[in-house]
C-alpha cells in the first residue's frame, strides 16, 4: 500500500483549542448499549437533531466557503474579479465615451483632465478602451478555462479511474493535441475563420488547452485512487460513481484548480498573441490583446499606451491566480 501523502504530525494545529477528546477514553465503563449512550446524549444537552451538531457539520464545499469568507486574499481577489465582471457586462457604468471615437490630433498624447490614461495611436481615449477591452479578455479567459477544465478533468478523471484501453487511447489523443504548437495551430485553425469574435478563439483554446488539464487530472486521480480510503470505501460497499465523486474527486481537484487558474492567465495573454498575429480577435472588437499589440511598436515614444492595457491584464491574471490559490487552500481541511 502506498503511504498517504501527508504525515500524521500535522495534527491539531491552527487555532484549535486544546483538545480533551484526544485523550484515551475511559474503559471498563458500563456495558455498551444504546440506552446508556442515549442517556449521555441527553445529559450533554444535545437533543437529537438539535442545532449543535447541525451547525458544525457541513459538506466539504460549505466548510470551504466558511473558510474563504474569512480569507483576505480571497476577498480582495473576489472583489477585483467581481468588479471586472461588472464592467465587462456594463462598461458604460464607468466609461461614458465610445471606444471607437478617434481624434487624430490627440494621437499618442498622455493623460489630461477627463482622459486619465491618455490617447492611443489613433487618438482614441485609452481609459474607455481599457474598460471596454475587459469584456473580450474576461470572456476568453473564463470561458476557455472553464471549457478546458471541464473537458480535461472529465476525460482525464475517467481515464485515470478506469484505466485500461480507454485510458491508453485518451492519453495518446491528448499527446497529439499537446504536440501541436499553439501559435502554428492558431494560424492554421483560426485563419480560416473570419468572424473575429471571441467564440472561435475560445473554441480553439479549449481544443488545445484540455490535454494539459486532463494530464494533471488523470495523474492526481491515479494517485488518489491508490489511497487506502478508496479501498476502504470500496470494502464498505461504495459504488464506482460514489468512489469517484465523493472520495477521489475532492482529493484530486486541488492540482486541477491551481493549473486552471494559471492557465487562465496564459489564455488571456494567448488571446493577445493571436490577436497580434491577426488571427485572433480583430477590430472592431475591443480587447487588451489588440491594444497591447498595437502599442508594442510605439513603446519608446508612448509607453503609456502599453502600460494601461498590460496593467489591466496583469491585475486580472493576478486576481484569478490568487483566487485559485485561496480556493485550493480552503479545500484542504488539513490546512484549517
Amino acid at each position: 500500500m502506498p503511504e498517504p501523502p501527508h504525515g500524521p504530525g500535522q495534527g491539531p494545529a491552527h487555532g484549535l483549542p486544546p483538545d480533551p477528546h484526544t485523550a484515551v477514553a475511559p474503559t471498563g465503563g458500563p456495558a455498551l448499549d444504546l440506552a446508556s449512550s442515549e442517556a449521555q446524549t441527553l445529559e450533554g444537552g444535545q437533543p437529537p437533531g438539535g442545532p449543535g451538531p447541525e451547525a458544525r457539520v457541513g459538506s466539504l464545499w460549505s466548510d470551504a466557503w466558511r473558510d474563504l469568507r474569512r480569507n483576505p486574499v480571497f476577498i480582495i481577489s473576489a472583489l477585483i474579479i467581481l468588479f471586472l465582471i461588472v464592467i465587462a457586462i456594463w462598461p458604460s457604468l464607468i466609461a461614458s465615451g465610445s471606444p471607437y471615437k478617434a481624434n487624430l490630433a490627440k494621437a499618442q498624447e498622455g493623460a489630461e483632465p477627463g482622459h486619465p490614461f491618455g490617447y492611443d495611436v489613433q487618438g482614441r481615449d485609452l481609459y474607455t478602451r481599457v474598460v471596454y477591452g475587459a469584456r473580450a479578455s474576461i470572456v476568453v479567459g473564463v470561458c476557455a478555462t472553464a471549457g478546458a477544465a471541464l473537458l480535461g478533468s472529465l476525460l482525464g478523471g475517467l481515464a485515470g479511474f478506469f484505466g485500461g484501453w480507454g485510458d491508453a487511447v485518451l492519453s495518446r489523443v491528448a499527446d497529439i493535441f499537446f504536440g501541436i504548437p499553439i501559435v502554428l495551430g492558431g494560424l492554421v485553425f483560426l485563419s480560416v475563420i473570419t468572424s473575429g469574435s471571441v467564440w472561435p478563439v475560445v473554441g480553439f483554446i479549449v481544443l488545445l488547452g484540455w490535454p494539459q488539464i486532463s494530464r494533471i487530472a488523470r495523474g492526481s486521480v491515479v494517485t488518489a485512487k491508490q489511497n487506502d480510503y478508496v479501498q476502504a470505501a470500496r470494502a464498505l460497499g461504495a459504488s464506482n460513481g460514489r468512489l469517484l465523486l465523493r472520495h477521489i474527486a475532492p482529493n484530486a481537484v486541488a492540482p486541477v484548480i491551481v493549473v486552471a487558474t494559471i492557465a487562465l492567465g496564459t489564455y488571456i495573454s494567448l488571446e493577445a498573441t493571436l490577436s497580434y498575429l491577426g488571427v485572433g480577435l480583430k477590430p472592431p472588437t475591443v480587447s487588451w490583446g489588440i491594444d497591447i499589440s498595437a502599442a508594442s511598436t510605439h513603446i519608446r515614444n508612448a509607453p503609456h499606451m502599453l502600460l494601461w492595457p498590460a496593467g489591466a491584464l496583469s491585475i486580472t491574471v493576478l486576481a484569478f491566480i490568487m483566487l485559485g490559490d485561496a480556493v485550493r487552500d480552503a479545500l484542504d481541511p488539513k490546512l484549517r
Partner: protein
Amino acid sequence: MTVVNEPSPHPATEAPAEPLLDVRDLHVEFRLRDGVSQAVNGVSYAVRAGETLAVLGESGSGKSVTAQAIMGILDSPPGYVTAGQVRFQGRDLLTLGREERRKVRGAQMAMIFQDALSALNPVVSVGAQLGEMFEVHRGLSRKAARQRAIELMDRVRIPAAAQRVGDYPHQFSGGMRQRIMIAMAMALEPALIIADEPTTALDVTVQAQVMELLAELRRELDMGLILITHDLGVVADVADTIAVMYAGRIVENAPVHDLYRAPAHPYTRGLLDSIPRLDQKGQELYAIKGLPPNLMHIPPGCPFHPRCPRARDVCRVDRPPLYEVTDPGSVADAGGVGGGGRTSACHFWEETLDDE
C-alpha cells in the same frame, strides 16, 4: 469449529448449520511483469457466527490477500482468484455479479484497515463518512444519517460525539481514528468483520482498548470476526481459533489455548519462541532464521523446509497435507483420539507437539 481442510462435507457429528463464512481451497495469484506470484495457494478456513478466527503469519504470507479476495476488493489486474470458493451465508461470493457483491460489502461483511489515518478520507468529516454507510445501503437522508453517525460514535465511546461529528480524521488521535474505523465497519451490523491488523499502528495501551472494544461489539452483535495479525500477544485474549499461514497456505489450525500450550508445527513453535519473555531476561531472543520464500519460486516440498530446524529429506520433496492432530492435552480432544479441530501441515507434527 470445524476445520474444512479440503472441499469436504462437514462431519455428521457437527451441528448441521453451515458456517457463516467457509473459504475452500482459495487460490490467488498476481500476474506481474516479471512472473506470476502465487500469493494464496489453497487456503481453507471457516468462521461461525459469534466466533473469532485469528489469522497469523509473517508479512507476505498471504493473510491480507486472502481477506481482500473474500471481500472482493482485490486489485485486478494484477490479482486474480484462480480457484476455490468463498461461501458466505450459503452463497458462493465468487459466482455473484459485481453489483450483488457490492451490496454484500459493508452491509453483510465489512473490513477494518490497519492504518485508520490513511483509510479515512482526509477531506470528508468523520460524521459524513460514517453517515455514508446509511446513505449508500439504507437510503437514509443526510440528516438522518448524521444522527446515526453520532449514535455510532457514542457506541464506540468517542467522547462528545455530537460535538465532534463534524471534525476531520486528522483532528483525532490514532486510537480514536481506529474507533471510527470500527464504527464504520459495524455501522450496518454486518454478520462478519475482517480486521486487518487493526492495532498495528497503535501504541500498546490503546491496542488493548481497541481490542477490547472489538471483542465487546462482536459479542454484542454476535458477529463472526477474522482477526489478521502478526502479533501473537494480541490474539491470545480474543481469538477462539488460530490459523497460521505461511507462503500462502495454512500450516496450522488450532483452538487458541491448544496452540499456545503445544504448537504442532515448527513454524508456529518458532513464532511462539520469538516472543520476548521476562523470565528469559539476558538470553538471546530467538528468531526464525532465513526469510519467507519468494512467492514466485516457492520451494518444492514443504515451503518451510529451508528454515525449519526439523527438516529432513522427505520435507524437501513431499508437500505435507493438513494432517489431523490428535492432542491428548486438549480440552476439545479429551481422549486424544482426534476431533479436537486441530490440523497441522507438518510430516512430523507428533514430534513437534511432544517437544518441550
